[in-house]
């Protein structure tokens, strides 16, 4: 039982995530990819933009899948919460400490995700901009970590390899050059 609430190593979690690709293919010829649900949510609400004029009902399976992800997150993160603090490389702890982010207790830094941070205009803008870039970029590139990095690479598609390299270029720039400048300003 302890296994259900403790941290899982990569060689357990990775293969289980990889099995999403064949599982969705076998269940209904579906391609594993989460970011398109962001588009489906809009398509339910409005069809005033041509990008949103399609039959979202055909994507019901993915919206149900996303609802499952929320449910799984609640079960693992709330009902079976890991009591141990998150283990992070001491070098990362030190670098984040210099930005005013304390050593981790749970999955997310309260310095950025707490109510106190969100009620501050700087903290609010930081997360809104981060989310905006993720949503805009994922839809422009035609997929995110699940659609390109996992499904696309697993089905040996060159466009996905290009997208994933670019995901990493963007991530390297923001984590090494933007986060160290902006995060200290959030306090």
């Amino acid at each position, binding site marked *: 039982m302890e296994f259900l609430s403790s941290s899982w190593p990569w060689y357990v979690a*990775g293969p289980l995530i990889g099995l999403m690709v064949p599982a969705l293919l076998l269940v209904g010829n*579906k391609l594993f990819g989460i970011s398109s649900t962001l588009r489906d949510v809009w398509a339910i609400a409005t069809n005033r933009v041509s990008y949103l004029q399609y039959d979202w009902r055909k994507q019901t399976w993915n919206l149900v899948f996303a609802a499952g992800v929320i449910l799984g997150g609640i079960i693992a993160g709330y009902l079976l919460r890991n009591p141990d603090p998150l283990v*992070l490389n001491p070098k990362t702890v030190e670098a984040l400490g210099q930005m005013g982010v304390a050593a981790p207790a*749970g999955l997310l830094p309260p310095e950025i995700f707490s109510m106190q941070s969100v009620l501050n205009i700087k903290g609010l803008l930081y997360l809104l901009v981060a989310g905006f870039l993720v949503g805009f970029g994922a839809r422009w590139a035609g997929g995110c970590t699940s659609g390109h*990095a996992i499904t696309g690479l697993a089905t040996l598609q060159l466009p996905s390899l290009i997208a994933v390299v670019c995901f990493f270029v963007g991530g390297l720039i923001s984590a090494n050059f933007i986060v160290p400048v902006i995060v200290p300003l959030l306090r």
Partner: protein
Amino acid sequence: MQAVANVNRESQERSLLAYWPFLLLGTFFGFVLIRSEVVSWYHIQEMFRFQSFHMYGVIGSAVIVGAISTWLIKRSGIRTIDGQDIVVPAKDRRLPHLVLGGVIFGLGWGLGGACPGPVYALMGSGFPGVLVLFLGMLVGTFAYGVLQSRLPH
């Protein structure tokens, strides 16, 4: 009329019930995302600073298992549970949208520490910032929809 309405509602309910395998798979996926801690902002910073193998191990082994199992499916000619041939459509090969969209996505991933899957998994975490991040993703998606015809692809 009442009887027809009832039948319609019944068939709708039945069709939504037919999606239960996707609910189950999603729940399993959300559970694994939390347990492996790949949804953690801290681990994303660690990954992009090359200070841990964990994230690379998760993504790398997921790709390998996905590749081998998809190859086996294709090779064996297995069909879906309702008897269709399995098809994997090709991704759009045009370069500009992959590069520009990809870099923008990466910039946001490094800042917010979560991509769309993890943001769903974290909704029950009790941190209101997760909802703000999700709201930003929705706004970004809509903005792309509005600007799509004017962007290079």
